[in-house]
C-alpha cells in the first residue's frame, strides 16, 4: 500500500509540475508588466498560447530533417524527467534515487544538445547563431553548476538531491560562506540557463542578441508548443532546485499523511511565487549585457562555485 501511495505521489508530482510550469511563466510575465506600469496579459495566457499552438499546423522548413521533428519530443522528455526528479513538495519520493544532481544537470545538457542541433538543422543563419551562442554559454554555465553541486555534496555527503534537501532541513547546517557562494553561483547559472535578462531576453524576436529564441525560430505549431512548455518546465526546475536546497522549510517527506502533503504543496507554491517575484524584480531592474560580456558573468559564477568547493576542502565548517 505504501508503495502504491509512493508511486501515486511521484506521478502526482510529475503532473503537478507539468501543469504549474506555464503558470509560473505567466506569473513572471504579469509581474514584469505590472512593474513596468503595464496591465500585462492574464496569468493564464501561456495556457491559451499552448492550446492555440497545439491546434495549429506545423509549418516545416523545406530543408528540415527527421531530427528537427523528433527533437521537440526529446527535449521535452529530458527536461520533464529532470524536473520530475527535483523534490518539490516532498523529499524521498520512490524514484528520487534514479538520478542524482549531476545526472539532472546532464539531462538538461541532453536537452540543450538536441535544441542546438535543431537550430542548425534548417541551415539558416539565425538558427546557427543561436546554437553557437547557446553552446558557448553552456560551456561555462554547466561547469559552474557542477561546482555548485560539488559544494553541496561535500556538505551533505551525497549528490542525491532528495538527501541533500533532507540534510539542509537539519539544524547543523547553519549559515556558511560556502553555501552563500553556491547560492550566488546557482542563481547566476539559473539566469543564464533560462535565457533571462541580462544574459538573453525572452521577449525579443528580432535582435541579434537573442540566443534561445533564435534557435527555435523555425519551430511552429505543436513543436513550438512543446519547446515553450519545456522552457517553462526548465524555469520551474531551477526555481524548485533553489527552493529545495536553500529554503527547504515546509517540505514534507514521503510517507506522511495527506495534510502534510497539502502543507508541502502550499509551501512550495508560496516559494515559487516568491521566486517568480524576485526574478521579475531583478529582470526589470537590470539591462541586458553584450554577448561577449556573458563569459565574464558566467566565469564569475564558475569561480564562485569553485571557491565554495575549495573552502569546504579547507575546512568543513566554512
Amino acid at each position, binding site marked *: 500500500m505504501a508503495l502504491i501511495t509512493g508511486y501515486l505521489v511521484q506521478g502526482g508530482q510529475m503532473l503537478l509540475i507539468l501543469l504549474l510550469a506555464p503558470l509560473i511563466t505567466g506569473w513572471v510575465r504579469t509581474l514584469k508588466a505590472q512593474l513596468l506600469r503595464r496591465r500585462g496579459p492574464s496569468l493564464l495566457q501561456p495556457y491559451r498560447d499552448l492550446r492555440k499552438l497545439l491546434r495549429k499546423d506545423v509549418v516545416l522548413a*523545406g530543408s528540415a530533417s527527421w531530427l528537427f521533428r523528433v527533437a521537440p519530443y526529446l527535449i521535452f522528455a529530458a527536461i520533464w524527467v529532470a524536473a520530475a526528479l527535483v523534490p518539490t513538495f516532498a523529499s524521498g519520493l520512490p524514484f528520487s534515487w534514479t538520478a542524482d544532481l549531476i545526472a539532472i544537470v546532464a539531462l538538461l545538457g541532453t536537452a540543450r*544538445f538536441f535544441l542546438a542541433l535543431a537550430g542548425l538543422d534548417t541551415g539558416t543563419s539565425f538558427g546557427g547563431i543561436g546554437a553557437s551562442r547557446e553552446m558557448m554559454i553552456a560551456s561555462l554555465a554547466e561547469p559552474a553548476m557542477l561546482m555548485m553541486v560539488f559544494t553541496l555534496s561535500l556538505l551533505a555527503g551525497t549528490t542525491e538531491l532528495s538527501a541533500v534537501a533532507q540534510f539542509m532541513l537539519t539544524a547543523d547546517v547553519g549559515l556558511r560562506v560556502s553555501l552563500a557562494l553556491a547560492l550566488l553561483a546557482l542563481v547566476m547559472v539559473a539566469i543564464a540557463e533560462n535565457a533571462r535578462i541580462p544574459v538573453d531576453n525572452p521577449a525579443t524576436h528580432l535582435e541579434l542578441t537573442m540566443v534561445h529564441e533564435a534557435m527555435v525560430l523555425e519551430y511552429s505549431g505543436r513543436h513550438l508548443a512543446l519547446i515553450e512548455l519545456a522552457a517553462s518546465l526548465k524555469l520551474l526546475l531551477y526555481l524548485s532546485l533553489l527552493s529545495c536546497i536553500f529554503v527547504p522549510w515546509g517540505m514534507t517527506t514521503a510517507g506522511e499523511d495527506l495534510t502534510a502533503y497539502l502543507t508541502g504543496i502550499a509551501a512550495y507554491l508560496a516559494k515559487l511565487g516568491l521566486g517568480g517575484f524576485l526574478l521579475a524584480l531583478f529582470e526589470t531592474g537590470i539591462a541586458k549585457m553584450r554577448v561577449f560580456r556573458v563569459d565574464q558573468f558566467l566565469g564569475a559564477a564558475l569561480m564562485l562555485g569553485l571557491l565554495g*568547493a*575549495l573552502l569546504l576542502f579547507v575546512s*568543513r565548517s566554512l
Partner: protein
Amino acid sequence: MPLPLLLSLSMILLAIGLYAILASRRASCSRQIYGISLVICVILLGMALTHLLNAAAPVTLTLPLGLPWLGAHFRLDALSAFFLIVVNLGGAVASLFALGYGQHEPAPGRVLPFYPAFLADMNLVLLADDAFTFLFAWEFMSLSSWALVMAHHREPANARAGYLYLVMACLGTLALLLAFGLLAGANGGYDFATIRTVEMTPGLAALALILALIGTGSKAGLVPLHVWLPLAHPAAPSHVSALMSGVMTKVAVYGFIRIVFDLLGEPVAWWWGGLVLALGGITAVLGVLYALMQHDLKRLLAYHTVENIGIIFIGLGLALAFQSNQMYASAALALTAALFHVLNHSLFKSLLFMGTGAVLTATGERDMERLGGLIHPMPWTALAFLIGAAAISALPPLNGFVSEWLTFQAILLTPELPQWLLKFLAPAAGALLALSAALAAACFVKAFGITFLGRPRSPAAAKAQETDRYSLAALFSLAALCLLAGILPGLVVDGLSPAVGLLNGGAQLPAQQSQPWLTLVPVADVKSSYNGLLVLLFMALSGIFAAVSIHRFASNSVRRSPAWDCGFPNASPAAQYTAGSFAQPIRRVFGSVVFQAREHVTMPPPGDGRAAQFAVQLRDPVWDCGYAPLTAAIIKISTKLNYLQYLTIRQYLSLVFGALVLLLLGIALWR
C-alpha cells in the same frame, strides 16, 4: 588452456598479413583478409570475456623465443583480459566495417598486409609478461601502425605526419626501455614476475614513473606529447584511424597501468597521483579546445581523443593518490571510472571515426566546411553518428555519462586525502573535467550539426549516397553497445571488478547486480546513485506520452514551406553557419587566451569590387613553447658540432681515447 590458443590466433593474424603481401593484387583478397580478421577477433574477444567474467586465475606460459637467457613470457590475467576485450571488440568491428569500406581503398597492397599484423601486435603487447617481449611487441605495433599511416604516402601532409609519428614513437620506446631498465634493477631480471619483487628506492621509483609516463603518454597522446597524434591518426584509412584512436591509445593506457600499478607496486609518494591528475586535467581541457578549433572532421576526432585520454588519466591519478594514502575503497572507484572510460572511449571513438569514413566514401570530403545536409541522403549513418556524438558528449542515458559520473564521484571522495596540495588539485581537476565535458558537447554539436545538418555546402555533399550494409552493421553494433553500457552500467562495473581488484590489493567496488532496478551505487554509505535504465524508460515514456496525446487530441498535420529565417531567407548554402563561425564565440572566450586567436578582417572600401577577406590566426602553445625552441636548439647545436665531421684521423683517435678515459674515470669514481 586459453593462452596457447590466444597466442596461436595472434600468430595466424600475422600469417595472413604475410599472405596479403602475396595476394593483395587479387580483388577478393580484401574481403578474405578482413573476414578472417573479423572471425579471429571475435574468437579472441569471446575468450577474453570468458576469462574476465569467470574471474579466472592468471595463466602463464614461457616459450623458448627471444633472448636466450630470458625466453618469451606470456600471461593472461584480469587486466590483460579486459584490455583484450577492448582491443578485439574494436578490431572485430573495424574488420566488419572494412568488409565494405576496404573496397574503396585505392592502394590495398599498402593496407592489407599491415592491418592484421597491427591487430596481432596489440594483442601481443597485452599478453607479454617480460620486458623484452613487451617492448618487441610495442615496437612492432608502432611500426605496423606507422606503415598504415603512410598508406597514402603521396600526400605531403601524410609524409610529415608519418615522420613525426616515427620520431615520437622512438622517443616513447626509448623512455620505456629506460623505465624497464630501472625496474629490473641491478640484477637485470626482465620478466615481470621478477620485476614485481624488486625493491626500489623512492627516487628510482619516481624516475621510473616519469619515464613510464613519457613512454606510454607519448603513445596515448598526453599533453605535451600529443603533437603527432592529430596528424597521424587522420592520415590512415578510416577503419585504421578508428583502431589507432579508439584502441591503440588504450594499449598505451594499459602499458601505463601495467607498469605503474602492477610492476612498481604501491605508490611510494603522494605527489605521483598529483602529477598524473594535473597532467590529465590539462590534457582534457586542451584536447577539447584544440578539437573545437578544427574544421577537418577526422582531425577534430583525433584531437578529441586527447581529451578522453585526459579524462582517463584523471581517474588514474585519483587512484594513485588514494592508493598512496591506503584508501583502497576510494581507489577502486577511481580505477573503475578510468577503466570504464577506456571501454567507453574505444566504443564511441571507433564509431565516430567509422562514421567519418562512411562520409569520406560518400563525398570524398572530410573538411566540414564543404559538407552539410548529409542527414538526408545518409539517414542511417547520421543516426549512428548522432548516438556516438551524444555518447561522447557525456549525455545520459548513454555510456559516456556513466564513466564521467563515476569520475566525479571519485573526486567527491578527495576531501579525505591528508595532503593539502591534493586537496586543492582534486577540485581543480573536477572543474577542468566539468569544463571539458561541457566543451565536448559544444564540439560535437559542431561536428554533427555542420556535417550532417543544414544544407549541402558542396556538390559532392549534395550527391552523397548511403553507405554499404557492412559499414552500417559495424556502426550500429557500436551504437547499440554505447546504449547498452549506458543503461546497464552495473553489469560493466561488475565485469571490471576482477581487473580493479588485481591493481588495488584486492579492494573492488561492491557488486552492483544485486541492486534493485540495476541501479549503480558505487559507494554504499554515500548513497549517490544513478540508474540509466530508468532514465531511459522515463524519457521514452514521457516522449511517447507527449507524442501520442498531441497526435491524438491536437493536430498532426504538417506543411512544407521555405525556411522563414525572420523573413529574410538566403537561398545560398554559404549563408549558413559554418564550422568556423560556430566555434567563433568559444574561440573568442577561450581561444584568445589559450591559442592567442586573432581575427583579421580585410574589408575593401566602397566601390572596390574585390571580395572581403577573413582570416583566423591561431598559435599552438605547446608547439611554440615546447617543440619549436627544442628543434631550434637541436639544429643550433648540430650546426655548431658540424665541424666534428671534418677532423683528421689523429683527431678522431684522440677523441675516442679521451672519451674512453673519461668513461673509465667515471666508473672508477662511481664505484
